[in-house]
């Protein structure tokens, strides 16, 4: 088990460094294991945005922290990609430039994985292959509306306008 963990750890670490540099357009990041027993060791995160001095993670900004977490979560995902991945408003703290990079990564990963992305952000919506709107015209009752397909609708189902 310890060997499997170490192998996974090395792989995640490698992915983390790459994904971080993509999302931050440079800088560097790494994971370290502290302590002797890998199965008990603390997994620590180092992250340094481009041009800045290395500092403790806590001093990073809200958006930088979110982007670092996204880089790590994607790094883990890349080791064993799940067939689908759900993201619920992870883009909320990101500024426009960071959303652009984040969305580029989504598109790249979406060739192998179905993504369901809940968002309030217009830039994120723009890369959707398919868009669902949820509304509550009647208070307390959810309704699914206006589905838009950029690509062919999947077989055996017609595009729906409003569902009863």
């Amino acid at each position, binding site marked *: 088990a310890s060997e499997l963990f170490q192998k996974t750890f090395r792989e995640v670490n490698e992915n983390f460094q790459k994904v971080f540099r993509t999302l931050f357009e440079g800088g560097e990041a790494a994971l370290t294991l502290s302590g002797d027993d890998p199965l008990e060791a603390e997994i620590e995160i180092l992250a340094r945005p481009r041009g800045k001095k290395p500092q403790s993670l806590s001093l990073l900004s809200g958006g930088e922290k979110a982007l670092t977490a996204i880089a*790590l979560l994607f790094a883990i995902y890349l080791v064993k990609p799940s*067939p689908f991945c759900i993201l619920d408003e*992870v883009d909320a703290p990101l500024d426009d430039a960071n959303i652009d990079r984040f969305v580029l990564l989504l598109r790249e990963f979406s060739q192998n994985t*179905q*993504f369901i*992305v809940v968002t309030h952000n217009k830039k994120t919506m723009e890369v959707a*292959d398919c868009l669902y709107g949820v509304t509550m015209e009647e208070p*307390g009752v959810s309704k*699914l509306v206006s589905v838009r397909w950029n690509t062919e609708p999947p077989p055996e189902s017609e595009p729906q306008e409003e569902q009863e």
Partner: protein
Amino acid sequence: MFLKRLDIQGFKSFLQRIRVDFGPGITSVVGPNGSGKTNIVEAIRWVLGEQNMRHLRGDTLEDVIFTGSAQRKPLGMAEVSLTMFNNRGVLPVEYTEIAISRRTFRNGQSEYFINRKPCRLRDLRDLFLDTGMGSHAYSLIERGMVDNVLSDESGHRRFLFEEAA
């Protein structure tokens, strides 16, 4: 492609039956605050076998059944079905298409189905055990996880690593 369709009825704010067809690539879900987007995410989590009500923002299992509104009466049952392609043999069963369903009633009774055959909750959960898709793994990322994954206590990180190993 893997996910084909999600059917929700009576689960949380979904009084009326809704159907979500999934295409390849990125499906985006948008709408105002409180309209039901996260409820859709939780419906997927629930049908995959989520047992911890805290992960569904609830207290008891009954909390997922439509509780009524100012103008509508409560419902007696919540049901979610998820239909998937098994084209890459990701799931350890012989079918090419798999539909899983979960139902719960106000009296606390629950029912589970794989391709319409009754089964136990653990059969639903076992189906996804080694695919990273189990309802706790990194295939579901929401705002709270950002703090967790960066926090000083690395327990959350370790858990995700082990799921990916």
